[in-house]
């Protein structure tokens, strides 16, 4: 049955399923196609010739190819959030309900307002934007660019988040094959029979490659039968995987390949729980590129008229889809292969208007065919096309010898020969080599482990494709140590091949090289005249080959024209560098699962769910979610909550989850010596049961990280790092252990996740701990002095570690329990501390109290400061070597005028201090010459009832009491601040020791 209005559908034949009609809409018009159609073939079957408007000139365009090389037939597919611009109609599988719209036209495809651009075509030449929109500079962003973007360009992005899911996966194999044409299938057969693990990627939704359109006889069987038999055999091999709808797009180092699988692009919406597309990273020991070749156009005036189509594409539409792009076809060819289109056309009952063959010596067989079917064979070339948005009407031919002829036809098939797909073989900066006999570039070597076969290697005969594929498959399997028997190769005849190179026919009217970017032959010639001769310059100046099709049908023609005008040969002119991806790959596929809240992995502290129950506000700190503050009903803003938390700690007791600190077990008899070498201060002399603050430098003398380290046993230290540097410090310590000091007997293990650790602070800390710690434990100042560290029993039977360390300046302990008890511990602290008003506090209050106490943290340990800058210079041991010791002594790092940590407070107590403000001497003009440092950390101090901060200020510690200017050009502020002791709170330290 021929469905509905499918006026250009043949009554039978093709690989479409006529029992499954599919309804679809193009530019709002409902049409019918069949299962097995692409959008392009269904449009062809419905007689649609005009599919889009061109990029720059808004010229009417049709369908040029039947594959992923298509430059013209780009549509917006789907609607709403799933609208996908620049989708190739030639590869989009038809599904019931498909919606597509043409691009770059207004108000409609047939009546496009901006087609007036064609009238101005003479000025839209190569380099037009560069030459025209130069002045005034500020007009570029405000006027020119928005205007150009409206006028030029292609489809519109959806503009809203993609509702579909994407994922990424790894695959491993011995032999990876790109392409399932005869060469690829033969390679898979040989490799599979040898016992190799094989992955074959095919970008089409049906395996077979050109066999699907061109047929042929293999092993005495019609191509379709041979394909079916081969697929059945491959399907019986458990380690052979055929991935259709999958394009191998990139080749990376070490035998890693990128492929994109369009898992559900052929459905309106992916089924529930399924992804739209999947990005594959395939690791293969060997790879075989059987990616075929791309038929190339011949550049002539009007070659972009809808109805002008690649000869092989016309065979695909007729042979594979039983859809006829024209009723009366002319062929323009310079080679033998083009003539197959004539045979296909005749076989389908189409009229052949004429064959225009650029070669002087057309075979007698072809001449017989022509006379039998009543069409002329014209020796010459196409000089122009008369037609427009309704397609081709007449073809002007300039005959060899100078005479002119005219051909009436509604379709023109063009074959300029074939370009092997050399992308994959060239992605490691390989440069293909020129072969005169086929007038094409072929791979010249390939990335390690890769070989090209068949048409991708310049072998265009069916027999040669099968032979090369099979041999490569067997060899690759053998290289992988697979010794099975490959059997015999499939056999077919090789077709004759003859070609006379022809790239460009001079004529009147625009002759397009790159149809997607509207680059004409005269643009290439202009580029040459203006000095952009190198192919890399040509590409960038004219934008030739820079559209989404990456010049698959245009690059070689462009450089052939450049070669002609420069008088060089094509190989001398050379190709541009090939880079992946071979086809556009959606960013969503690269992101996979990593978007929105799963953009990166998240770490949760042991008290996270409890804190969430309390209504904590969380902040992202690296990968962590940390409770920032715990708002209570009636609090108007974060400052009010944080102030309450600080006051509760300073006046009573509070606790904060500090499990995010990096924690490392340092074991072994040399653990102390090891720590002496990585810290500026000594740890080998630390008593068991004591903790010490340590500072690490980089080898260049700059501070790296800090933290407390406790000695839990003779040969066991427990080291903590900052939250931010946890992973890096572990890596650094392993480097020290394994590379710098392998002679030391020391073992390192991260125990960051083993322990739930909480800081308990405030004058009532001991009271709270007495509730929860077993009464047998002595928590008195004598029994558990400042910087003590030991294991204690808790009521109810579990063990905990207690560290008497303080970041807040208050009487404080850190308590840690094995992580699965972490949530129980916070709940028990709340119970035990109820009568004491125990208050959970977040990272903001923690930060306020550390600024009040003058402790340095991330903003001060910023990769530019020395120990002395931080006021910790005296910690540097002179009795031992340690990482960074020598470089820390360099002149510039001990210069007296360095910027050092100092306290900063506005003289106006009501003023808010901002971090980032520059410190300028009073009375001086702000500027780099007078910049003496900046404010690093600020907070509102509830204790001092004003904003305070820390800063890095030149000679800061010698200038306590001096009034300077805080200059904040970002916020347009400047105000007086006093430089002061950075320890704002309890400078004598009685509270934390008491």
């Amino acid at each position, binding site marked *: 049955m021929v469905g509905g209005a499918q006026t250009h559908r043949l009554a039978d034949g093709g690989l479409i399923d006529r029992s499954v009609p599919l309804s679809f809409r193009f530019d709002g018009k409902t049409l019918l196609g069949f299962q097995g159609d692409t959008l392009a073939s269904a449009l062809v079957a419905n007689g649609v010739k005009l599919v889009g408007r061109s990029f720059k000139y808004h010229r009417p365009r049709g369908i040029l190819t039947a594959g992923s090389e298509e430059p013209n037939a780009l549509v917006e597919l789907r609607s709403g959030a799933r609208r996908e611009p620049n989708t190739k109609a030639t590869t989009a599988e038809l599904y019931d309900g498909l919606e597509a719209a043409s691009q770059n036209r207004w108000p409609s495809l047939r009546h496009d307002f901006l087609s007036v651009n064609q009238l101005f075509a003479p000025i839209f030449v190569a380099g037009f934007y560069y030459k025209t929109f130069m002045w005034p500079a500020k007009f570029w962003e405000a006027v020119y660019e928005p205007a150009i973007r409206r006028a030029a360009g292609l489809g519109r992005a959806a503009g809203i988040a993609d509702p579909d899911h994407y994922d990424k996966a790894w695959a491993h194999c011995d032999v990876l094959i790109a392409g399932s044409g005869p060469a690829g299938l033969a390679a898979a057969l040989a490799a599979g029979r040898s016992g190799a693990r094989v992955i074959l990627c095919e970008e089409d939704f049906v395996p077979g490659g050109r066999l699907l359109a061109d047929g042929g006889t293999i092993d005495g069987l019609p191509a379709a039968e041979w394909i079916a038999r081969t697929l059945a055999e491959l399907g019986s091999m458990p380690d052979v995987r055929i991935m259709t709808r999958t394009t191998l797009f990139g080749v990376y180092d070490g035998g890693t390949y990128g492929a994109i699988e369009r898992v559900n692009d052929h459905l309106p919406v992916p089924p529930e729980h399924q992804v739209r597309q999947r990005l594959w990273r395939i690791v293969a020991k060997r790879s075989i590129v059987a990616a075929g070749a791309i038929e190339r156009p011949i550049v002539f005036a009007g070659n972009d008229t809808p109805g002008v189509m690649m000869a092989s594409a016309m065979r695909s539409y007729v042979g594979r889809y039983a859809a006829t792009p024209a009723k009366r076809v002319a062929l323009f060819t310079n080679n033998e292969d083009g003539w197959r289109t004539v045979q296909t056309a005749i076989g389908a009952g189409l009229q052949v208007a004429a064959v225009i063959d650029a070669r002087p010596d057309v075979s007698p067989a072809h001449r017989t065919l022509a006379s039998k079917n009543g069409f002329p064979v014209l020796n010459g070339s196409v000089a122009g096309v008369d037609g427009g948005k309704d397609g081709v009407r007449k073809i002007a031919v300039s005959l060899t010898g100078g005479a002119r002829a005219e051909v009436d036809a509604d379709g023109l098939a063009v074959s300029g020969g074939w370009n092997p797909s050399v992308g994959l073989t060239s992605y490691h900066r390989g440069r293909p080599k020129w072969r005169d006999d086929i007038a094409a570039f072929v791979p010249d070597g390939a990335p390690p482990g890769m070989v090209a076969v068949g048409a991708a290697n310049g072998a265009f005969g069916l027999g040669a494709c099968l032979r090369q594929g099979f041999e490569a498959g067997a060899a690759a399997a053998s290289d992988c140590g697979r010794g099975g028997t490959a059997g015999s190769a499939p056999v077919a005849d090789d077709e004759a091949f003859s070609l006379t190179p022809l790239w460009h026919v001079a004529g009147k009217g625009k002759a397009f090289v790159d149809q997607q970017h509207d680059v004409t032959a005269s643009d290439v010639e202009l580029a040459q005249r203006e000095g952009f001769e190198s192919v890399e310059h040509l590409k960038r100046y004219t934008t030739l080959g820079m559209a989404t099709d990456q010049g698959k049908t245009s690059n070689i023609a462009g450089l052939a024209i450049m070669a002609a005008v420069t008088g060089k040969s094509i190989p001398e002119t050379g190709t541009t560098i090939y880079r992946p991806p071979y086809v556009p790959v959606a960013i969503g596929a690269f992101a996979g699962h990593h978007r929105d809240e*799963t953009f990166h992995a998240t770490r949760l502290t042991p008290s996270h769910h409890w804190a969430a129950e309390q209504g904590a506000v969380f902040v992202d700190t690296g990968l962590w979610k940390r409770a920032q503050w715990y708002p209570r009903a009636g609090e108007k803003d974060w400052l009010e909550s944080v102030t309450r938390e600080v006051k509760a700690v300073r006046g009573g007791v509070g606790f904060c989850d500090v499990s995010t600190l990096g924690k490392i077990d340092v074991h072994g008899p040399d653990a102390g010596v090891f720590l002496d070498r990585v810290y500026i201060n000594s740890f080998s002399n630390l008593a068991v049961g004591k903790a010490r603050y340590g500072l690490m430098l980089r080898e260049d003398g700059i501070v790296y990280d800090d933290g407390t380290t406790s000695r839990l046993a003779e040969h066991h230290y427990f080291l903590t790092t900052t939250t931010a540097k946890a992973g890096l410090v572990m890596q650094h310590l392993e480097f020290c252990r394994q590379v710098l000091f392998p002679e030391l007997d020391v073992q390192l293990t991260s125990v960051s996740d083993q322990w739930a650790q909480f800081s308990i602070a405030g004058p009532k800390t001991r009271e709270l701990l007495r*509730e929860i710690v077993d009464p047998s434990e002595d928590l008195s100042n004598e029994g558990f002095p400042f910087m003590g560290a030991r294991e204690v029993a808790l009521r109810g039977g579990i063990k905990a570690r207690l560290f008497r360390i303080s970041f807040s300046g208050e009487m404080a302990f850190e308590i840690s329990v094995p992580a699965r008890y972490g949530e129980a511990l916070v709940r028990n602290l709340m119970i035990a501390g109820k009568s004491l008003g125990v208050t959970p506090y977040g990272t903001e209050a923690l930060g306020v109290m550390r600024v009040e106490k003058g402790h340095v943290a991330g903003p001060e340990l910023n990769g530019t400061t020395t120990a002395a800058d931080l006021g910790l210079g005296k910690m540097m041991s002179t009795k031992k070597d340690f990482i960074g010791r020598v470089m820390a002594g360099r002149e510039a790092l001990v210069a007296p005028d360095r910027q050092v940590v100092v306290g900063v407070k506005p003289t106006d107590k009501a003023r808010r201090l901002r971090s980032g403000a520059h410190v300028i001497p009073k009375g001086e003009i702000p500027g780099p010459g007078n910049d003496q440092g900046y404010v690093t950390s600020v907070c509102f101090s509830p204790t001092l009832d004003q904003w305070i901060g820390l800063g890095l200020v030149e000679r800061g510690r010698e200038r306590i009491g001096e009034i300077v200017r805080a200059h904040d050009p970002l916020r347009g502020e400047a105000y007086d601040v006093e430089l002061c002791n950075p320890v704002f709170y309890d400078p004598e330290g009685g509270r934390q020791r008491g």
Partner: protein
Amino acid sequence: MAEFSWDIRSPLDRTLVTGPYGARGEAGLSLTEIRNFDLVQAMARRGKAAEMAAAAKARFGVAAPETPKAVGNADATLIWSGPDQFFVLSKGGRHGIEALASVFAGSASLSDQSHARALISVSGQRVRAMLAKLSSIDLHPDVFAVGSAAATSMDHTSVTLWRGGDRGGQAVFNLLVFSTFAESLWHTILDSAAEYGVTIGHSEELA
């Protein structure tokens, strides 16, 4: 004095919902969190790898793995975690850190990791398809046989992976993941597994 209860919460306690998840029909996968295990990391002292191996052999009757393997006896599994180091995975304190301290005294340093990891067991017909989304390692049965182990990364997170004995003719893969990353990785696993249909459970028994 208040009474305190010390409830244990596994890292996945709040997020794991038992029952079916994802595509309906026969589940292609089962995902089980194993809870409340003992896990001790043993790392040989300098030059003491042979002594550590001998101590392990004496204690467990099997040599400690010297290559990425998991070996075991009835009540402990020794899983390679890096050069000259391995995990001892067990239940009920028999081979917890206190029990092992004397066994490896002088030959290895021990760190308790019982609370530092979540243990997830994955099996089923589609297990390799699902893991291929998380793991860059080749899990083909010829390459990653029963007893193979790997210190590797999934979703940029360190994971210790090993293949246990087959269950019902299906491969079983065990994943030790960092506790604080466990929820995040769990969601990634569910996302990867949803299309195959999953049966989710938890267990106190080591497989």
